[in-house]
């Protein structure tokens, strides 16, 4: 079983060892680093849980059963959050799974942190309306 990501509903990107996934419908952010970013990278390439676990077992210092269990827990959480859908059974298996080279090879259970309050946070941000003269008091030029 591989997994599908709705391009219209989900936006995601990886930079270094960090990945961010945005549910564009709910506004929720999901962020994960290290092993979580790697699991996501493999799922995006069409890997099943077994295929992802096999690849990760080669890359990390962990045993396959543990890694597989951890990946399954992570995938279940992503399915529950509506980030992933189960793909059609007829989907072609990936030819070669790839992961970026990262520093740490220590296996840690992958987990994504959910942030459902990003917009609330932005709205509360006490950023002032600053114009060319500053707000509400312009700083004297001599101090800049």
């Amino acid at each position, binding site marked *: 079983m591989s997994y599908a990501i709705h391009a219209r509903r989900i936006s995601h990107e990886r930079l270094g060892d960090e990945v961010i996934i945005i549910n564009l419908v709910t506004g929720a952010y999901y962020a994960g680093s290290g092993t979580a970013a790697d699991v996501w990278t493999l799922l995006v390439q069409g890997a099943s849980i077994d295929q992802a676990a096999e690849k990760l077992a080669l890359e990390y210092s962990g045993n396959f059963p543990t890694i597989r269990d951890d990946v399954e827990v992570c995938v279940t959480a992503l399915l529950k959050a509506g980030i992933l859908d189960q793909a059609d059974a007829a989907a072609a298996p990936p030819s070669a799974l790839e992961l970026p080279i990262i520093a740490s090879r220590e296996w840690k259970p992958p987990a994504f942190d959910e942030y459902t309050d990003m917009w609330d946070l932005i709205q509360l941000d006490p950023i002032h309306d*600053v114009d060319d003269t500053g707000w509400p008091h312009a700083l004297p030029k001599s101090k800049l």
Partner: protein
Amino acid sequence: MKVLVLTPQYLPSWGGIEVLVDSLAEPFRKCSIDTRVVTDDAGRLAEYEIVNGTPVHRLSFAAAVRSGFPGKPLAVLQQLAGIVESEHPDLLHMHCATGSSAWYVDRLLRKSTRSLSFIVTQHGVLEPSDRLKVVRDLLRRADALTAVSDAALQSAAQFSNHDGRQEIIANGIRPYQQPASLPGLPGLHRMVCVGRLEHEKGFDIAIRALAVARAEGLDATLTIVGCGEDRRKLEALASELGLAGSVHFRGACDNEETRRIMAGASVVLVPSRTREGFSLVAAEAALAGVPCVVSRIGGLPETVADGVTGFVVSPAQPAEFAAAAIRLFRHASLGADLGSRARARAGLKYNLDTCVEHYQQLYLSVLARAARGAGVTS
């Protein structure tokens, strides 16, 4: 000691947090505390510059989230991590955990391989109904939680169940020479409001209070200093109430002019509706010896001692603001007494040296505890 200070905004923006951090930086340097500021860039300021001797990094925290593209906040997060890596601070001090940097700081602390001491100073009042898990997590994680008033501290502590060190540190205000005030005119009573022109500041309440005072036959005016999205609404309200000639919108003024206007006031009104942990305006009015009338909300009642240095009235009640102002207008000696006591109290409460000392002790204590936790002996 090097402290990386996170602020929602920094100079040339000029609110309570910016003034505090700028005021602390120089005396900190004298006691070997180097300040580095990381703040939001507001989309138009330099990414890096030295402001009054303090290095300032500006990152697009809010804009990256607003973009809706995941790559943008990821890039900003990497920039922040790079700054921490290159500056190598001894501790992070976040002013206002509800700033747009909250998410980035949360990610940074979760990912950081080195143990960074972390302090939060809360400037506003958090409401129990706020759905801000990331802020709650940050507050809970802080090695020390401080606030500018008891109201701000209590709200943050209850909001997060923070069980570590907690302390109120009143904002220190840099001493300055009081400007010559505007010349007084016999029988003219000046009300003044200073701040961002937005609903939460409640300047509409001040305009309505002015209407009540004038209806009582008093020759009163209201000067509003500041700019913001509500200016047209406020101008329309003044016109609607027949006060167009009595309400003066001064827009943004420099510090000297603002202080001159406040020093010439009969009374300064702070009619805020919500979320004020501290009022720089009320504190500066007190230092100028001008009585204040403030809303009984958040930390404002701690800034004004009711009946002693000014008056504290119900929020959003123009009649109560008007009654307090009228009392001052009709009894000039009362205003002089309150103003005199306000100045004396503010001189002690908002003493910059005391504020510097409190923060210095806090930093040393947090670092000492971290060193003990890491098994380092000095």
